[in-house]
Structures are given as C-alpha cells and as structure tokens.
C-alpha cells in the first residue's frame, strides 16, 4: 500500500544512513572483540562503501542482497565457526535489506505524504526505541532458555554449545528436576498451596468486590484501601508481621498458614479485576431476575457470575501466579515442610548454582506464558461479548 510516490535516494544519503547502522552494530561487535571505537569505525566505513557500491555500480537488488547474505555469512564462518555463520548471515540479510530500504526510499512509501523529514525520522526512531525496550525486557529470559539445556553443571555457554554440537546440550537438568526428591516435594507443595490460596482469594475477593461496588456500603474507599494494602505494603513487612502473628496462634510452619498468607496476597488482584468488570455490569439485570422471583444467591450464580466470570478468572490467575511465584512470605510463614518451588530455587541459587534452576525457570516461564495467554483470550472474549470490540 504505497501512500506516497517516491524517488530513489542519492548514493550519498544512502551511504550516510547505512554508515549509521553499521556504526551501531560495529559498536557491539567491536566491544565483544576488545575495541568498541574501532568497531564503530570499521562498521560505518564498511556499510558506507557497500551502500555506495550498490547504489552506483551494482544496482540490481536480488543479486546484491544475496551477495550480502553469503558474504557476511562466509566472513562470520571464517571468524567464528558455526555461530559466526549464523550471526554473519543474519547481519548480511539485514544490511542488504536495509540498504535498499533506504536507497529506494521505501521507508517513505507507507507514510502519509505530508509528513516532514523530522516526523518520518521520529516515526522510525520510535519503533527502534520500542524494539530496544522489548529486547531489554526479554533478553534475560532468552538467555535462560538455552542455558537450561546445558550439558555442564554451570551457568556457562560452553564452546560446544556455541558451536551447536549435540554433546553440548542435554536434558539432564530437566531429568534432575523430575527425579530429585527436593524438587518434587517443592513442586508438590507449590501445586498444593497455590490452588488453595487461589480458591480462597477468588471467593473472598469476588464477594468483597461485589459488596464494595454497591453504593450503600459505608466507608467503601477506606475498606477498599485496607483490602488492597497487601499489594502496596512492602512484602518483607507483611512477611515479618505474619511470622510473629502466625507463630503466636500456631499457624507458622503449617500448610494452612501459608495458604492463608498467600490468599491475603492474592485478594487485591481479584478485587481489582472483578471491580473493573463490575463497572460494565448492568444492575437492572439483577433487578429483573429478582422481579422474576429469583433469590439473591440464584441471581448471583445464574445472572451476575456468568457475566463477570472473565474478570473473576483473570483475577484468579493473577492470584495463582502470585502464590506460585512468591518467595518472601513463604520463607517466613512456612517451614521446611512447606518448601515451595520459588523457595527451593532461592536456596538453590544461593548455595549451589545449578542449571536445574534454569530448567525449572524455563518450565515456569512456559506455564506463565500459557496462563497469560488465557487471560488475554478471556479478556478479548469478554470485550466481544459486551460489544466493545469491532469484531
């Protein structure tokens, strides 16, 4: 969809724009090789020359881009073996695409014709910044995933791994997780505690949200603030307080104590999501149900609950993840018998840096992604049902 008719750029402009990108990547590669400044200069110079050559001499796009891909891949292979080949080929493909993207003014094509050059620049800068933030957020997770398949017992990318050799990888840390009694006990505890805490959070949180959403409740804001407070008060304060309180009443070091503590942490999430769903709930429906002779309990389960269910479920998922990921409170309120997965990971990381933790982390990341995908799908469904979404 070409919005704007374009004319190709001059070789000089293309070379300058390519030099900027070359300098950017040169900085990283140069730093990795020992000299960032040298990397910037070489990267900028190389890309400027290539762009100039493509604009003035070669001019045909397909062969030029193929040559870039193969050339960079070959240089990468010569310098760094298989990993170098992959990185080099990716860079070559990207540079080839970029030179023609700039050189043929394609970047201008999809934008409105009346934009000034400054606005066009900002349009792309903005996307680059967003991409950089995304990379910043996701990199730690991306590093953990391959390391969890490490064949060695350290958090190290071994030479074998970097050369993509099969012997550098193994599933032994996953096997360790599945066979070690320490990990299995903590998994069992987590799987036991989190759903119970979730059920309590959802029941109490939903009731509280419904109560607080009706106008005639006195001190609504104050009550709301108190119920939300576990989310705001620093966790370590709640944990220390709970430790001394639970010790006195005999709940410290019991499953019930941990479940109650986690339920208290989960309730705010349920209240917030359910309150938000209730904003869109039409009260006249409950009155209509009452008019037809339904008692409040029937009304709740037959009319109100199905409509606010997406909010309840997403609140429940947040409560579940809170309990499943929680380490501070359980360290205080629990004893070794209630050791949960995060606790085991915490001590494992401190006393013994073993990639088993990474294997567990990978599994948890996958579970979290599945849960959050469910939440998002439910949210979309509820929007669609309420007609807020265009579909």
């Amino acid at each position, binding site marked *: 969809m070409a919005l704007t008719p374009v004319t190709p750029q001059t070789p000089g402009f293309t070379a300058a724009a390519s030099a900027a990108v070359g300098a950017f990547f040169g900085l990283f590669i140069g730093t990795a090789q020992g000299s960032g400044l040298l990397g910037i200069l070489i990267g900028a110079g190389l890309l400027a020359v290539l762009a100039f050559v493509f604009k003035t001499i070669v001019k045909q796009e397909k062969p030029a881009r193929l040559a870039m891909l193969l050339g960079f891949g070959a240089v990468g292979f010569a310098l760094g073996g298989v990993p170098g080949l992959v990185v080099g080929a990716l860079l070559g493909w990207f540079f080839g695409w970029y030179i023609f993207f700039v050189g043929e003014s394609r970047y201008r094509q999809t934008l409105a014709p009346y934009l000034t050059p400054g606005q066009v620049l900002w349009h792309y800068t903005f996307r680059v910044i967003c991409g950089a933030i995304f990379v910043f957020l996701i990199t730690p997770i991306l590093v953990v995933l391959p390391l969890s398949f490490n064949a060695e017992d350290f958090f190290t990318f071994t030479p074998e791994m970097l050369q993509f050799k099969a012997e550098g990888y193994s599933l032994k840390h996953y096997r360790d997780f599945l066979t070690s009694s320490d990990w299995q006990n903590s998994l069992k505890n987590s799987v*036991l505690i989190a759903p119970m805490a979730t059920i309590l959070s959802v029941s109490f949180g939903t009731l509280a949200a419904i109560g607080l959403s009706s106008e005639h409740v006195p001190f609504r804001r104050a009550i709301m603030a108190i119920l939300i407070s576990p989310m705001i008060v620093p966790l370590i304060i709640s944990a220390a307080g709970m430790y*001394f309180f639970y010790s006195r009443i005999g709940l410290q*070091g019991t499953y019930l104590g941990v479940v109650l503590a986690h339920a208290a942490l989960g309730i705010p999430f349920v209240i917030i999501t359910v309150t938000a769903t209730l904003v869109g709930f039409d009260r006249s429906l409950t009155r209509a149900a009452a008019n037809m002779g339904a008692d409040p309990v029937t009304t709740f389960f037959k009319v109100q609950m199905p409509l606010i269910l997406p909010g309840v479920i997403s609140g429940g998922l947040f409560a579940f993840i809170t309990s499943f990921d929680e380490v501070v409170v359980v360290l205080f309120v629990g004893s070794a018998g209630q050791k949960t997965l995060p606790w085991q990971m915490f001590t494992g990381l401190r006393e013994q840096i073993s990639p088993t933790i990474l294997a567990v982390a990978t599994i948890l990341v996958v579970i979290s992604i599945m849960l959050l995908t469910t939440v998002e799908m439910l949210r979309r469904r509820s929007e669609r049902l309420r007609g807020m979404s265009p579909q």
Partner: protein
Amino acid sequence: MKFTKLTALALSTAICAPMAFAADMADEMTIVSWGGAYSNSQQKAYHEPYMEKTGVSIINDESSAEAVAKLRAMNEAGNVTWDVVDVVAADAMRLCDEGLAMEIDPDTMLAPAPDGTSAADDFGDLLVSECFIPQIVYSTTFGYRTDLVGDTPPTSVCDVFDLEAYPGKRALEKRPINNMEWALLCDGVPKAEVYDVLETAEGQERALAKLDTIKDSVVWWSAGADTPQLLADGEVVMGSTYNGRLFSVIEEQDQPVAMLWDAQVFDLDGWIIPAGLSEERKARALDYIYFATDTQRLADQAKYISYGPARQSSAPLVGKHEELGIDMAPHMPTDPENAKNTFLYNYEFWADYRDDIDAKFQAWLAK
C-alpha cells in the same frame, strides 16, 4: 445447582486439607544445613541410615546461612521449629553465648570411639564450645584455572597478590576474615605474628593497603557456589572458596582447575541443638546426634565430600569416593601433603575484633 456444589466442595477442600497435613507432624524432625553437595553428603551418610533405623522422617531446611538470625526470631516468637542445626563454629559460639543453643556433655550424650576412648578425647581440641558438636574440618583455600596461569602455576598464597605474574580477576570472600590474614602474610609479616599485628589499627591499615594493590582485580563473593561458577566461566583466574566446592569442580565436574593449598584456613562445622525444645523433640534430637556423630558415620560422610571428619578415630576409616572410586584421603584438607602451611580460624581474635574490622573493611570496600 451443580456450580454451587462444586464451589462448596472446593472451599471445604481448601480449608480442611491443610489440617489433615498438619496432623502427621509428630514423628518428623527438621534438620537445618547448608544445601547443595554438603547436604547431600549428610543425607546419604546420616539421614538415610537414621531414617531407616528409626522410621523418623527428616525434613531438610537449607537455612544455615541465616541460622543465627532465624533462631533469634524463633526464640522471640516463642516458636522454635528446628530440631538440629548445622552451623560453623563461630556461629555456634554466638548462639551458645546468647542461650539459643543447649549445652552438650560429650561424655554422656555422644558415642565413644570404637576402642573405648571417650568422645571428649576423640574430638579433642575441636570441641571449641559447650554447645557445639564438631562434624567436619573444612578449609577456605584457593583454586586456579590451569589453562589461564601460563607455564608456572601459582604455588604460594602470595601469588594471589601478584598481578604481574598472574594477571586477571581473582575471587575473594566479601568479608575481612581470612583476607586480612593472607594480606599481612604476603606483606612480609611472619605467620606467628599475624594476629599480633592485626590487633593494632596500623596493622589493619597495612592489611587493607595490601588488599588495595589488587582491589581493582577482585570479584567479591558471598556464597560458596560463586567461586566455582566464576572459575568454570573463566571469569576469574583464581579464587578462594571452601575446599569441598573445589573438589567438586575439579573431580566431579572435570573443569580445568587445580588446588592451591598454601595458607589454607581450617574451620569447623558441626551441630547444635536449639534451646527450648519440648522434651520429646529434645530426646529425638539427642538420639540423632548420638547416631550421626559416631566414628563410622563421620567417616562415611567423607565418601561423598572432601571434608575431614572431626573425630581422630574416623581418619583411618576414610575410604574411596562413593561414585568416582578415587581415594579421598589425598583430597582432605588435613592430609599432611596439603597441610604444610595452614591457619586455624582464630575464634577468640575474631570474636573480639570482628565488628571493628568489619566496619573498616566495609568502609574500605565502599571507597
């Protein structure tokens, strides 16, 4: 009304299930230790035979690193949940002084040696506190990367301070203990006078000045697992850590690392029983201690980890590594070949000067 029934069922499960779990606590005991390979060796050498013998089930808690703080909190809350705690000797002394650990009479509460020698004589000088039953002798010493030190591997602890011969980062523990002694030793103080010098403010300045010469090349560690990871990564050329950790890196993980035993610092690790246990739990804890610190059990632990057993009568019984089948004796810090030049952690000195020197060390670190 299927939905309500389901909810009611779920709710009642949520509330009742924990109580069912709480009920079978009676014949369990919680043993606190350090985790990792060390806990594993105790599990194999002590816990498993004990559980088999008595039917008690043992829960492991890996909280020894914060044992003092946690025991204080438990005492304050009036709810001691630990039965037996593994701590280093210095922590045991502190807990004993504060009345948080119970006193143990070695002659009536511990097993005599097989030849009839009393436990007090068998442990000898290692019974450094009335509340403490020593279990192992471990040492803090250096390991180095064999492939990063060139043709002349380091032979003396002073090579750690020699940036010209061995360029690269070193890992040192983030506390003054041991580092101050090594610094003075390498600054030309004779070994016998190290603590006399370290008592004075000038001596402390002198040690810090020596450490200052390598400060920019130091990676500071605080957990025993840090140095092995750094060595395996090649992030550091050499680093101090516990000798058992280095054994595991070298023999079990097959990394290009070697030991530098020079000026290793011996320390003791052992059991305490928290004060204020109920009679029933105290009897069980004492029964466990009697079993787990006898001559054979201590020798058994050395099959799994390269720490020296604290009883003299155990030393001849130390055999081969359970999985690797190598002789464990040459890997013990107490082996004569390794123990040519050693320190013993100076409990009295550090009890008196720790707070003061800690403050100076931290201030120096922050500079």
